Structure formats: structure tokens, C-alpha cells
């Protein structure tokens, strides 16, 4: 009997654990689910008192890509994709170069260099925006995609910590062996270290690729009213400005779903490295 009681107690505790998790999952997933439901809704009114759409439709998605007179979503998507590809290539290269140097090469000003980067990182990223805007203006790069690429990739070097942490873990004996065989530092970098660094390269590529999709503030300041150069974040926000929200809310939801799906997949792919990256910074200088 007492065994049965203990069994019962276990069952109850187990049930409570799972119930709690289920309730929390609902709270966390409900807005996401509801976003998707909204994107499939025919009624355009954003302020409704029910959750399931009265009529399901894919029209919002169709409109998003075809009805481009006021809001040219395909254009924003291509803009963001272009910026993302270029800034991801440049940033990744810069980050790998800087993190490898600071991890493996020894030169007089190394400590100083790292400290300067640390201090630069403490300024709010947005603070320099005004000056950057004027600099880009001088080069006729404001309101251009090139300007955005420049901004995203030039700041990337400050986020070298994770990649440096990775390079720190590659045994130095490999470098020494290669040096004895007559390999130059350049050869070691390209032929030995980089081929061993696939995880960190993938991680850096994915993270720098995601950045332009989720950045709102820089793109907003650089592009201002130039709507054919907007990125998805800027464009979608304009879609639900006060005058448009009644008409375009469901289309806005569809836009978010379209942007989110690839990002969710990319994030899931890099999840493991992502966690390792955030926590590895904790023990390595």
C-alpha cells in the first residue's frame, strides 16, 4: 500500500512538472502561433476579439509579393539579402583575421590593441551614428546598400571574442610542428588553422548573415525616407504606421513569417555553437 502511495505521489509530481511546462510553453508560443494565424486571416482588422480567423486565406502572402505599389516587400527582401551576403562575407573575413591574430600571433602592442577594442565596445553603438552618417555622406554612400554593408562590416571586428576563444583551443604544437617544416605564418593560417575551424566559421557566417535582417536602428537612420532601399525591418515597421495598420496588419504578419522562417532555421543550425560562444567568453581573456 505504501508503495502504491509513493507511486501515486511520484505520478502527481511528474504530472505537475509537465503541466507547468505545458502552461509555460503555451504562454511563450501563443504570440508566435497567433502571429501565424493572423497572417492567414482574410479579415484585415488588426483589433479583433477572437483568435482563430473566421476565414483562412493565403492572400496576404500573395499580396505581399505582388501588391508592391505602396510597400515593395520583394524589393526589401532582395535589399536585405544583398546586404546580408556582402556584409557576411566581409565581416567573417575581418573577424577571422582579427581573432586569429590576437589569439595566435604575438606582437608588442597586442594587449594594448585588445584593451582599445574593449573600450570601444563600451560606447553605445548608436552614439557614433551621426558621425558615420556624415562620413558616408561625404562618400555619397548614404541611402545606399553599400553604406549599410560598410556599417555592418566595419563594426564586426569588435565582436571577435567568440572566434578568438575558439582559436585559443587549437593546440599550439600544431603551429610549431608546421613552422619546423618550414611553413610561414601565412601558410599556417590558411592551410592549417582555417580548415580546422569549420564550426567557428559557420557560426560567424550565420551570425553576421542574420545581423542585417534583425537590425532596425542603423538601417532606419541610413535610409530615412528612401523606401526603395529599405531593409525588411524598416519596411515592415512602416507597414504598420498609424495610417497603414488597418489595411496592412495581416500582410505585415505574413511578412514577419516569411522573414522569420529562414532565420529560425539558421538559428537552430547554429544553436549549439551559439551557446558555446556565449559561455566560452567567460573563462578566456
Amino acid at each position, binding site marked *: 500500500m505504501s508503495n502504491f502511495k509513493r507511486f501515486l505521489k*511520484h505520478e502527481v*509530481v*511528474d504530472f505537475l512538472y509537465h503541466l*507547468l*511546462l505545458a502552461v509555460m*510553453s503555451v504562454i*511563450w*508560443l501563443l504570440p*508566435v502561433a497567433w*502571429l501565424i494565424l493572423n497572417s492567414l486571416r482574410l479579415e484585415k482588422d*488588426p*483589433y*479583433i*476579439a477572437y483568435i482563430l480567423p473566421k476565414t483562412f486565406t493565403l492572400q496576404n502572402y500573395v499580396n505581399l509579393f505582388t501588391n508592391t505599389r505602396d510597400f515593395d516587400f520583394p524589393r526589401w527582401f532582395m535589399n536585405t539579402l544583398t546586404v546580408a551576403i556582402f556584409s557576411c562575407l566581409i565581416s567573417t573575413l*575581418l573577424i577571422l*583575421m582579427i581573432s586569429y591574430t590576437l589569439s595566435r*600571433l604575438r606582437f608588442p602592442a597586442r594587449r594594448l590593441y585588445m584593451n582599445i577594442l574593449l*573600450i*570601444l565596445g563600451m*560606447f*553605445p*553603438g*548608436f*552614439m*557614433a*551614428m*551621426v558621425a*558615420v552618417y*556624415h*562620413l558616408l555622406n*561625404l562618400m555619397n554612400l548614404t541611402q545606399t546598400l553599400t553604406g549599410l554593408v*560598410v556599417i555592418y562590416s*566595419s563594426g564586426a*571586428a*569588435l565582436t571577435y571574442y567568440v572566434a578568438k576563444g575558439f582559436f*585559443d583551443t587549437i593546440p*599550439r604544437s600544431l603551429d610549431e610542428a608546421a613552422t619546423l617544416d618550414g611553413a*610561414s*605564418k*601565412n601558410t599556417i593560417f590558411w592551410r592549417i588553422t582555417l580548415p580546422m575551424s569549420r564550426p567557428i566559421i559557420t557560426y560567424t557566417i550565420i551570425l553576421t548573415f542574420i545581423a542585417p535582417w*534583425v537590425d*532596425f*536602428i542603423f538601417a532606419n*537612420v541610413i535610409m530615412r525616407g528612401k523606401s526603395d532601399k529599405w531593409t525588411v*525591418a524598416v519596411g*515592415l*515597421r512602416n507597414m*504598420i504606421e498609424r495610417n497603414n495598420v488597418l489595411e496592412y*496588419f495581416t500582410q505585415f504578419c505574413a511578412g*514577419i513569417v516569411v522573414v*522569420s522562417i529562414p532565420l529560425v532555421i539558421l538559428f*537552430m543550425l547554429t*544553436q549549439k555553437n551559439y*551557446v558555446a560562444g*556565449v*559561455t566560452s*567568453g*567567460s*573563462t578566456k*581573456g
Partner: protein
Amino acid sequence: MKHSLEKHGLKEPAFREFVGAMTKGDVFTRLGFLIMGAGCAARGQIAKGLLLLAAQASYIYFMFSFGVVYLSDFATLGTVEQTTVWDEAVQINRVVPGDNSMMILLFSLLTIFISLIFLYVYFTSVRVGYQALKRHRAGAAMPTFIDDLKSLWNDKYHFVLLTLPTLGLLAFTVLPIIFMVAMAFTNLDRNHQPPGNLFTWVGFENFKEIFFSHPLKSRTFYRVLGWTLTWAVTATATCYIGGVALAILINNKRVQLKNMWRTFFVITIAVPQFASLLFIRQLLNDNGTLNIVLQNLGMITEPIKFLSTHARITVLVVNFWIGVPYTMLITTGILMNIPEDLFESARIDGAGPITIFRRITLPYLFFVTAPFLITQFVGNINNFNVIFLLTNGEPRTLDYFQAGKTDLLITWLYRQTVDEQNFNMAASIGIMIFIIVSVFSLITFNIVASGKKEEEFQ
């Protein structure tokens, strides 16, 4: 390597070498103080000498054609105001451009920047000239230009790898930051906008206004600062506690389908923040769905003002929703990686599950996640997205100088630049944020410094 100075015992500290070029050098290394590259060229390093000479020539050309023009106005930031004169011939008012303070400031800083870089090149050129002389005197082999290029691929490889990232940082991070810091000491507000108007240096006037002399601005500063710190502490603490609790819950041995639960929460991280925030904003609107549903259920009669009266609570709750899965994701990995022998020895010592949790799991978790906590706190001080996209600083109040109750320093800064054009205010706020963040990071990182040296991990 075969040309290294160490091998010949000729290596000296950089500055002593520079002085040595004057005191112990020959006529050519001394000439190198005036004509860059002379020391090298005299010892047969012609290509190197010519390169250095070319650098000197282009710097001088740059200074006379460009640098001096702006530097001469640096002290005043321009004196000639833009005017309009009546042009009789074409019968219109014609704008006569004056000095542009913004350009003067920017280009002066650029010139100073380039001069500093040139100074470094100059310093180095004297040194390498003297190094060539030392080699000559010691009868050591003189590296050819090809050798020098090769050494770039080897023991000077850091130059190759760092040049590009450093130039990018200098141009688009360092220069802009210095430019903004300079702006904090000017009167560049809405009424002094170039090119129509001039602005000039005002010393610490802006900081004085923020701290005490301008009642409205200083009140706003202290209140916004107070809210920023309250927000950062509360947001960090709630997300951390919630996330750790969730991670521990999922990690519990008796919970089935761990990966499924984890994925549920991770999905919400992966949706871009701007998207979920804009969506939630619509949801919480005065006539948004949440209010309508509550009204239909008869639970409230008036809509709850989530985004105005109760905005401070709303942003904290929504931030909790956003932040908990993130902390959960980070801490789950750590929880699973706690060394098993820690538990083992505790069990042998007769510790129960609660003691183990209190004395081992929690301290370990806290120790490993301390840097994460610090970065989270700093991130929350500058948490632009949540505030800007959710409430946009609302509710606005006349008590504040162009700010609202939920504005953080960073969103106030944003408004001062983009909406109000008070760049001097914005820059001063930015400097205050920098001081807060750097002092806080310095203190906390030193407290939690694990004492492990980075070299030990290599």
C-alpha cells in the same frame, strides 16, 4: 627569420633606437629625420627608401592642399556665417555659403588622425634607417626588399592581418566616436545647424546643464538615469532567475521529452526581436486584442493602458517573455556540464539533493554565468529595441525634456539625434552611458575574475 635583429644582438627598445639614430647615427640616418627613407637608401635599400619618401611627399601634399585649410579653423569651428544677398541681375536672393562648422570639425579630426598615423610612420622610418646602419656596421647581411616583403608573410604577419580590420575600425568606429565626444563640448543643437548656422566650442556647458544648471534637462537626466538603472537591474534579474528556473525544470530527471520543451522556447528567440516586439505592440494597444478580449469577458470595463499608464510594467513583462528562453538556452548547457565528480563527492559526504542544489549547482552556475550576467546587464542598459519598438518611450511627459517615462538613456539619445537634432545633448548622454558601462564592467569583471590566465588554455 634569417634577418632578425636578435640574431646579431642589435635589438633595442623602440624609443632608444629613435634617439640612437640622432646620437649614434651617421649623416644619412640623421638626414632621415628630414627626408624620410634617406637612411635606408644610403645602405642600399632603395625601394624601401623611395616608398618612405613617397609617403612623406603625399603627407605634405595632403597637409597643404587639405589639412591646413581645416585645421586653421579648428579653434573656432568657423567664423563666416552663411548669408543671403539680393542678386540684382537675376532678381533673386542668392545664398552665399559661409563656413561649415560640421565639416571643419570632421575634417580637422581626420587630419589629426592622419597626422598621428604619419607620425608613427615617421618614427618607424627613422628607426629602420638606423637599423640598416647598425647592420652595416656589424657587417650583417642587409635584407633586400623581397626579404622585407617575405617577412610580412611570417614574423610580421600581424601587420597583414590587422591592417584591414584596423582601418575599418579607425574610419567607422574610432573617428566617429571621437567626433561625437568632441560634439559634447560644442553648442550644436537645433538652433546651430550647419550649413545655415555656425556652432562652436562651449567647454563643459552641456554637462553642467545636464547635471544642475538647466532644471528641466537635469531633472530629466536624473529621472531617466534612475529608470535606466532600475530597468537594467530588474530586467536582468527577472530574466536570469526565470531562465535558470526554467532550465533546471527542464533538466529535471523526471521530465520527459526534454528536447521538445527546449525547442518550444528556443523558437521564440529565433523570431527576430523587432518582429515579435512590433506584433506584441499591436496586441497590447488600447484597442488591441488583449483589451477587447478582456472587455468581452467582462473582466474590465475600461481598456488597460498597457502602453502608456502601465508602460513600465509592460516593458518589464514583455522583456521577461523575450529574455527567459535566452537565459534558459545558455544555462541548460552549463547545467549539463557540471563535472559529475562534484556531485559524487557531495553524495559520499552524505549531502541530500537540496543541499547539493544549494551548495554545488547554484554556486557553480553563478560562477560560470557571472560574465554572461554582466554582459546582460550592460546590454539592458542599452536595450534600444524593447523600449523603442514597444513603447517608443511613451508615455511622454512635460516634466521631462523631450523624453517619456519609459525612455532609457539610449532611446533618449536616439531622440535627441534623429528627432530633435540636439547633437550636443546626445553626445553628452552617450558619454555618460559610456562612463556608467565602463565603470560598472571594470568593477564587476575584476570581482569575478576567475584568476585563470588565457595562456593556460592554449
